[in-house]
């Protein structure tokens, strides 16, 4: 018999905000990024900062009028990617990426990267060589 979950009034969003390991206390994403300002654009990576607490992907975006904008896309902790075998070589300047996210509430050219994909539709960090997810191959071992 399938188990049915009962939700708080307010739907999934409310439930997630109260999840057993909450994100709210570390970072109020709803507070910083605007659900009413979704962004989706294609740009070229100019720099990736593999730093904590958040990695940042710098992207040059060409606007419809031909001018360029520099965006900073917030991502997660790079340490989890390291444990999957990724390194600073995994995302090089010049790569084209598609960013699907939400812009900062203060209007800055900053967004949290809800989805990061390559132009061919692959989720980012599946490996630019296209031979499969780096995190499916064992990380470099000692010895």
């Amino acid at each position, binding site marked *: 018999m399938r188990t049915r979950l009962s939700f708080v009034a307010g739907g999934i969003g409310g439930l997630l905000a109260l999840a057993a390991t909450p994100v709210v206390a570390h970072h109020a994403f709803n507070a910083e990024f605007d659900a009413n300002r979704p962004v989706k654009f294609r740009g070229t990576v100019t720099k990736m900062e593999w730093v904590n607490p958040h990695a940042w992907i710098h992207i040059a975006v060409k606007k419809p009028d031909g001018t360029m904008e520099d965006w900073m896309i917030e991502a997660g902790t790079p340490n989890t990617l390291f444990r999957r075998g990724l390194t600073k070589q995994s995302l090089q300047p010049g790569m084209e990426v598609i960013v699907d996210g939400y812009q900062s509430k203060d209007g800055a050219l900053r967004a949290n990267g809800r989805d990061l994909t390559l132009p061919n539709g692959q989720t980012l960090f599946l490996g630019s060589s296209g031979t499969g997810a780096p995190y499916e191959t064992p990380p470099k071992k*000692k010895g």
Partner: protein
Amino acid sequence: MRSRIRSVLIPVGSAAAVALLWLVVTATAGQAPTAARFPSYRAPRLAGHSDLNGVWQALVTANWNIQDHDAQPGVHPELMGAYGAGPAGQSVVEGGEIPYQPWALAKKKENFEKRMMVDVTDDKKWHDLGDPELKCYMPGVPRATYMPFPFQIVQGSGDYILIAYEFTTTTRVIRMNWKGEAPADSWMGWSRGRWDGDTLVVDVTDLREQTWFDRAGDFHSDALHVVERYTPISPYHLMYEATIEDPKVFTRPWKISFPLYRRMEDHIQLLEFKCVPFTEELLYGRLRRQPAQASQ
């Protein structure tokens, strides 16, 4: 006539001999024993290697300046008086001077002039100003070794050695006989250790370029490569040596060395120096909400 000369010569000769003996004695007494002058020492073994466990601390003033430096009034002497002043110290750099490339001296001077300035309001210029120590950033290698705080080596029987520094509770994992690469740069670098006889040799790469060597603004690039040597020379001393290589900034590799002293107090332990709260007003104070503020 001859007997008179002879009688003069003998006292003169004795005086010369006495004088020579005096010189030899004082010369020996005045020189500090270095590793070469300690009776040869072999540290107790732990799992087949020198046991380096303990709480250690450097006594040199290299954190102020790793080269020769006079006492100095420090910043804001009108507020800090003698509290903020810096001591004099002799260079820990073998040969005395850091072999900077000519362009680098201007950068060092700029670092020094801006060591107490901070501005974190622009992400792109976050690290452009200020001594990282001022901001309570992890000091990198080798600076962590000669910060004026103790550190503890926890060496066991596993494949890793921990070095824990009291300054901002910095930690560093030495991976023994490790072949893997660092995935990215880090403030304390990627440390691979091995034993060379009784000496622990640590090869450090992939250091963040933003660390400094001292408060004098001595700096490096992302090409920094440090090789450390920790050698027990007595039950109470390690000799620390670090060879520094950075072809983007220096004309050749260079080396620092100084002893580390075992902290001997009963029940010595590292206490906490979590300095982040001490820097928040400096870094973020200008972003406080002002009552009834009209403009940013």
